[in-house]
């Protein structure tokens, strides 16, 4: 498989996952806001933080009011991480490689982008927002289903899966990081007001609430949620599980030793983490999550050096704009 084709597939999957995860975040936050009293210092700002777009947002808007944040994350063409921009990038990446996937996959990506673009043009009103976000999530899930059900196991599928899992793991750490900063109590025995409700929303944004209920069987408490989302080997959106899938997919590729080793290191960090200690110290947790994100960036760099840039060459700076803009890259500017 050509390196360019592999790289395009990988980014296509990352962008689709990014669009879906952003839609989930927005959807859950909307519901949470309805349940919380007005005076709670939460609001919409954390979403901007989670998506790593703080600097870009501040350039354009003065306040983190609902309308600005929702527009910025859904339909802003100047925000390269908005749902609209992510889907446009996904479509561009697939457009040049559409011959390697079943036609329906291209059609679904195309259809989704065109629908979102059309919606964005007319503005995402609060009344229609829920339907809009649900549609994005469902359509992304349809794509996942199409890939699962129609794409042969091989390098095409592997690169799509690698992109999806890495983006997913990245997104889960962002949600944990931002939410825990405001949610983890200084004293673990103390129960913050509405804490329970907010941890539930964290689980719900990852569609992990029912799974948590079935598996953990405890009331929703910070440390347990943290352990579940970091270390559970079975929950698809848990970080350990994403890394496990990554490692599994890599075995289908040639020359995978370095990437496999990099993934194993990050995975060991996650598995060996002392959750009790992290749960008791927001600053420790923050440092730990920073470490994980550096690990994800390293996985990406190793993948890129091995498969996208030819490893025999000096790594070149990729010029394709929009493709290399990950959340991490933007945070550096903050």
């Amino acid at each position, binding site marked *: 498989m*050509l*390196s360019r084709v592999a790289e395009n597939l990988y980014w296509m999957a990352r962008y689709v996952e990014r669009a879906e995860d952003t839609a989930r975040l927005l959807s859950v936050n909307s519901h949470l806001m309805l349940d919380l009293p007005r005076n709670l210092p939460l609001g919409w700002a954390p979403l901007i933080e989670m998506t790593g777009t703080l600097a870009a947002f501040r350039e354009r808007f003065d306040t983190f009011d609902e309308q600005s944040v929702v527009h910025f994350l859904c339909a802003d063409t100047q925000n390269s991480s908005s749902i609209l921009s992510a889907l446009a990038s996904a479509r561009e990446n697939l457009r040049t490689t559409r011959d390697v996937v079943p036609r329906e996959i291209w059609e679904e990506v195309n259809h989704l982008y065109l629908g979102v673009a059309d919606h964005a043009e007319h503005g995402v009103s609060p009344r229609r927002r829920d339907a809009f976000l649900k549609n994005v999530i469902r359509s992304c899930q349809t794509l996942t289903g199409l890939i699962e059900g129609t794409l042969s196991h091989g390098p095409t599928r592997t690169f799509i899966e690698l992109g999806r899992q890495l983006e997913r793991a990245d997104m889960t750490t962002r949600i944990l990081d931002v939410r825990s900063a405001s949610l983890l109590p200084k004293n673990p025995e103390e129960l913050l007001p509405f804490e329970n409700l907010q941890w539930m929303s964290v689980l719900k944004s990852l569609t992990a609430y029912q799974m948590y209920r079935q598996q953990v069987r405890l009331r929703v408490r910070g440390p347990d949620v943290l352990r579940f989302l970091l270390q559970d080997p079975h929950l698809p959106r848990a970080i350990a599980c994403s890394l496990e899938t990554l490692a599994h997919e890599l075995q289908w590729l040639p020359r995978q030793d370095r990437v496999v080793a990099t993934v194993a290191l990050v995975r060991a960090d996650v598995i060996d983490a002392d959750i009790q200690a992290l749960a008791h110290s927001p600053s420790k947790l923050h440092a730990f999550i920073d470490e994980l994100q550096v690990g994800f960036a390293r996985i990406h760099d190793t993948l890129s050096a091995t498969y996208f840039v030819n490893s*025999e060459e000096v790594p070149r700076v990729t010029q394709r704009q929009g493709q290399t803009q990950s959340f991490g890259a933007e945070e550096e500017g903050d």
Partner: protein
Amino acid sequence: MSQVNWNQYACRDYFDELIAAPGQPRASADELCSMLARFSAEELAERKTAADIAIRTMGITFTVYSEGAMIDRAWPFDIVPRIISAREWRKTEAGLKQRVKALNLFIDDLYHDQKVVKDKVLPAEVLAQSVNFRPQCVGIDPPHGVWAHICGSDLVRGADGTLYVLEDNLRIPSGVSYMLENRNVTKRVLPELFASGKILPVDDYVAQLYDMLAAMSPRSGDDPQIVVLTPGIYNSAYFEHAYLAQQMGVELVQGSDLLVDEHDVVYMRTVEGRRRVDVIYRRVDDEFLDPEVFNPHSVLGVAGLMRAWRAGNVALANAPGAGVADDKVVYAFVPELIRYYLDEEPLLPNVPSYLCMFEDDRQYVLEHLDELVVKPANESGGYGMLIGPRSTKETREEFARLIEANPRNYMAQPTIALSTTPTLAGGLPQPRHVDLRPFILSGPDIHVTTGGLTRVALVEGSLVVNSSQGGGSKDTWIVETDEQDVDSVEQSGGGRHAVTSR
């Protein structure tokens, strides 16, 4: 109730490909015309719908730039095939082979000894002012001495029934994928007629193309690494690039996928690492092929590709520089070139041409601007042309000035009354003008496609067959007939001063 009545088909003004006279289909078209006459209006409409659906589901598209965006349009297709008798085609095929053989000898000569100029067959000024002559190619010996491996020659039929060569496309001719897909669609839509086995198949093209490319490989071995090099998805012929790569089972690459190392070897970047490339079927123009040698700003090409080609480490089809023979002034000399290189009389005539560089011709052209088509030597796609009968006084005066200023750059031809063929319009077959582009592959052997791509001007009276301007296409059938073909016309010789066909 029958819908089609060939007695009412208006074919008096032009030579018609299918109908010799009202109510009289040509022998090769007899079976098709009788069948169409038996169809009810509904059945005819159904067949047309079936074709439209087939084109959509098969994803046959071409790309146009419209309102700031690139869009894929469904390929405009007419279900009534254009038919040529096998007897006539055999002669045409021989003529095309002869022509391409001479053209390749000519190109090879230009990049070596230039005997043709020394012997004064081609005036030195024609070569001196050729914009497609590439000094970078002088002295290179491509495999089999072939430069134009894939040639698409445009043929038109005049009022007297003679097939003329209108031009030879020796750079990166396109359209062959549509020729193949047109046949696939027609087989679905008119399967009855294929049962008799008289229609010759076209589908060996891809295999011949692959074999030809494989035979060019600089490395011995059974498994040469062949790639198709495309400028990318925004190119109007991207569908064809992807189609041919897929049909041949080779990689479709862009310039950025390839690299040339310090040993002048070409590689492609794959997830397995570098893989050596032996043969490149390039669909990128010469000027963009290698920024080291040609346009330094090109991002479509591969830096060092010319080094690798010169070193014999990679084969390129078509060879850079082949376009030197793809020049409207050089065109006029092709009959002479055939005589010079092959010592044979040309089997296919040129459209008579007047070269403004010659005083007599120039005088004639300037006096007859209102009836001639004037073409600049090196434009393609119909740009910068004067169509005399439809021109204004001002444009004629402007062209007169242009011709006087740079006579070498202009040639003129009489307007050809392009032949027509029945084409569905408003539910009935109506005469529409057509041309034909056969493709000729030159390797160790020369192969000509069975027929070619018939392009049709869908608008009544229009002569523009280009798909971006209301043109469409149709399947081309070469049909074996039992009887002596009454339509065949004596081929006239191809001197450039032959009498006009009007």
